[in-house]
């Protein structure tokens, strides 16, 4: 679904199928490219989308194919906002251990949120089944336009 108002465009998908969710990502990234997001931005958006959707499918919906993930992608003049919602019970981000702490360094999982926070502004809405990711265009792109 695609809608547009006030200069902002929104793309929405609801699915439980990883392949469909990935196809949606490719459409989002195409839109990013035509909107002037840099290669670094696109790398960051791809990585964060993949991590957030994987968390939603695996940890949120616990791989239940009857449960869906809804992705809402909103484009502003110089930003993109992704909102990923699953049908799980949610989680408290404050309880996620710091994966960079020496005692956690060899843990095989728990790095997705850290990476998302590095590349995008992350907001987790209570009860924790909605993650919002915001990325502004790299400043070098803005400089180039002026």
């Amino acid at each position, binding site marked *: 679904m695609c809608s547009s108002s006030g200069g902002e465009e929104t793309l929405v998908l609801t699915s439980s199928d990883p392949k469909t969710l*990935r196809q949606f990502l490719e459409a989002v990234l195409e839109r990013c490219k035509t909107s002037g997001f840099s290669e*670094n931005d696109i790398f960051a958006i791809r990585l964060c989308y993949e*991590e957030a959707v*994987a968390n939603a499918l695996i940890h949120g919906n616990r791989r239940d194919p009857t449960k869906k993930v809804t992705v809402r992608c909103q484009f502003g003049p110089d930003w993109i906002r992704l909102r990923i919602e699953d049908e799980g019970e949610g989680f408290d981000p404050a309880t996620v251990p710091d994966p*960079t702490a020496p005692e956690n*360094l*060899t*843990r*095989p999982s728990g*790095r997705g949120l850290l990476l998302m926070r590095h590349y995008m502004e992350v907001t987790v809405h209570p009860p924790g089944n909605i993650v919002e990711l915001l990325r502004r265009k790299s400043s070098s792109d803005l400089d180039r336009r002026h």
Partner: protein
Amino acid sequence: MSSAQKTPVLLVEEDPSGVLIGTFQLNRVVDEEVVQRLSEELAALAATGRKVILNFSKVEYLSSSVLGKLINFQRRLKEHGGELRLCCIHPSIYEIFEITRLNTLFDIYRTEEEALEMF
């Protein structure tokens, strides 16, 4: 079965010095099915207990789940008496290792030749 499913994630070759070099064949190591296949290939590689280099030159994207597989692989390889080196990691991917501080856990080299020399 799709062609992607038939393709091994790693092409493993033996260097004349006896080091096993596993080169990633895909530029994106993200899909759960691909990561699972990688996990199986790494398990077989760990069981050799050999000196191993993983060459990332083709990898442009990977998910955090791959990092977990690498951590388990290094641990199992060491348990079997082997050693691991990583090489040829693109700057954007190396940044992921830095953010997660896994650059301190793995021995990472710029080139395959440097990784070989350090064994």
